[in-house]
């Protein structure tokens, strides 16, 4: 491989990652700026973080968001698991086409449309909007993602193990719980995390589905952001980014250690020299 090509690739990677990360890094740096102005560096300060702790509204909505994310991700993962089982195990049952389509449709549906439809429904049936309707909205939004994530894992695994368990006298349910469930456990965790992050981040569905007293953090951030850049929003954004960074770092560490235990890293390192040449 010519040196020019290899340098071009390094430059591409560099520029690409700068584009992806520079705005986030700049935002984090600005959150420590003592000055209110974006363009003036007024010295290092953590005063915006201190101000966050006194912002009751923001803290309350952070709690609402967290509670909604925990609840909706739990329900959504359970429903996604049941839907994925139905789609892989039950053959071509009647109305499978309708079920399949309805499960996957929210993936491509604009959030504005889903939110509008849900709000219309709540109003038509006289349901008061609040935390419960917020959770309903988020489960409906995230269920397609959890179903798809678990569906892929259920399809990829070897069915022979479960059949062997049943040959050895396990009931279908027992074989599923003891054999299949551990096999797809990583996918279930991924599905839960996906639903959790989507719920925590959602602005559109929440704006339609929630009511007074259950304003979510993205809704607060959004109403502040519409008024312009604010140092407090920089601070809370940085905290949220740091949270995700730590979680991703831990996940990477766990999977790295597991891979090393399984010897995968050793083999990939051993193979690397002939590939790098």
């Amino acid at each position: 491989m010519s040196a020019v090509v290899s340098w071009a690739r390094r430059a591409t990677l560099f520029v690409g990652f700068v584009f992806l990360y520079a705005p986030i890094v700049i935002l984090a740096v600005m959150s420590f700026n003592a000055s209110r102005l974006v363009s003036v560096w007024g010295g290092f300060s953590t005063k915006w973080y201190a101000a966050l702790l006194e912002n009751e509204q923001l803290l309350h909505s952070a709690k609402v968001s967290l509670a909604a994310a925990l609840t909706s991700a739990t329900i959504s993962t359970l429903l996604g698991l049941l839907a994925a089982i139905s789609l892989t195990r039950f053959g071509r049952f009647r109305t499978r086409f309708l079920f399949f389509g309805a499960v996957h449709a929210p993936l491509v549906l604009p959030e504005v449309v889903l939110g509008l439809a849900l709000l219309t429904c709540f109003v038509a049936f006289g349901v008061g909007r609040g935390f419960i309707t917020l959770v309903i909205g988020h489960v409906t939004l995230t269920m397609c993602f959890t179903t798809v994530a678990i569906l892929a894992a259920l399809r990829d695994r070897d069915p022979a193990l479960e059949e062997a368990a049943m040959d050895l006298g396990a009931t279908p349910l027992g074989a599923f719980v003891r054999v299949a469930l551990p096999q797809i456990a990583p996918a279930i965790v991924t599905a839960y995390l996906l639903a959790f992050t989507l719920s925590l981040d959602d602005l559109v569905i929440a704006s339609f589905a929630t009511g007074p007293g259950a304003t979510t953090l993205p809704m607060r951030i959004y109403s502040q952001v519409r008024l312009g850049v604010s140092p407090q929003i920089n601070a809370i954004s940085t905290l949220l980014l740091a949270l995700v960074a730590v979680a991703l770092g831990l996940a990477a560490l766990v999977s790295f250690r597991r891979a090393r235990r399984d010897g995968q890293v050793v083999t990939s390192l051993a193979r690397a020299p002939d590939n790098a040449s």
Partner: protein
Amino acid sequence: MSARRRLSLGERLVIAAPYLWIGAFFLAPMALIAKISVSQSVLARPPYRPIFELSDSLADIWAKAQTFTLDSYRALVSDTLYLESYLSSLTIAAVSTLITLVIAYPFALAMARAPERLRPILIGLAAAPFWTSFLIRVYAWIALLKDEGLINNALMALGLITAPLQMFATTGAVVVGIVYSYLPFMLLPLYAALERQDPSLREAAGDLGASPAQAFLRVTLPLSREGVIAGALLVFIPAVGEFVIPDLLGGSETLMIGRTLWNDFFSNHDWPAASAAAIVLVAVLMIPLLLWERARLADEDDAG
């Protein structure tokens, strides 16, 4: 296995919960807005004339069906705001998808051809922004694009411009926001398609006298077609219905259908009009998906 079978009791218990949930909170609401879209707009709350009630007799239902109206759909065609919003959404989404592809392709190629031990780290770094808040990533661009923002300040400090460029609150800013936010969605399928390619195919092209550029155009690019299509759909479809990006980065002249719908629903309270627009939007988005599905089936027929 028979073509259509009945479910056993146990199976019904498993499928009941997800089925009921989708029925109650997805299918029923969608049916409801379809119904509202043919209702007459009234000044009340809810702001449309209810059509059917459980106590209705067949005659009542028939009488009420006579009041169905396509006014909302007619209004969509005659009201230039909606028509322009659709066209502008499709244009903005298409341009953004193209730019995302042009940026993502060399990026994904560089990752796919990096030393094997580095690839998991690179792809992890490329996918990580997906897990961070969408809203915050869009917000980060406001500080960069504003008149007194960092890009304008840097350009003025370098003496390249004398007055700030108007970048914030423009359609261009919306395109930048979409490209930035959806880049990981394009990168991942492209990387998957490129990484799978057998390097010996390129080597064979080289041995047969192809220049690197020819090998790229005639081997690498055609073989990555599926990744390109998947990535393009993953960017284009959500971009068409996008609300947050045009609302935060766009100007008042930036029309996108998600934003128009939102405003009609919350500010104007014209629910029949908003419902009709939503139904049309769903129909518009289904077209590329059906075309893709058809192309995929045709490919499978070719292969088999």
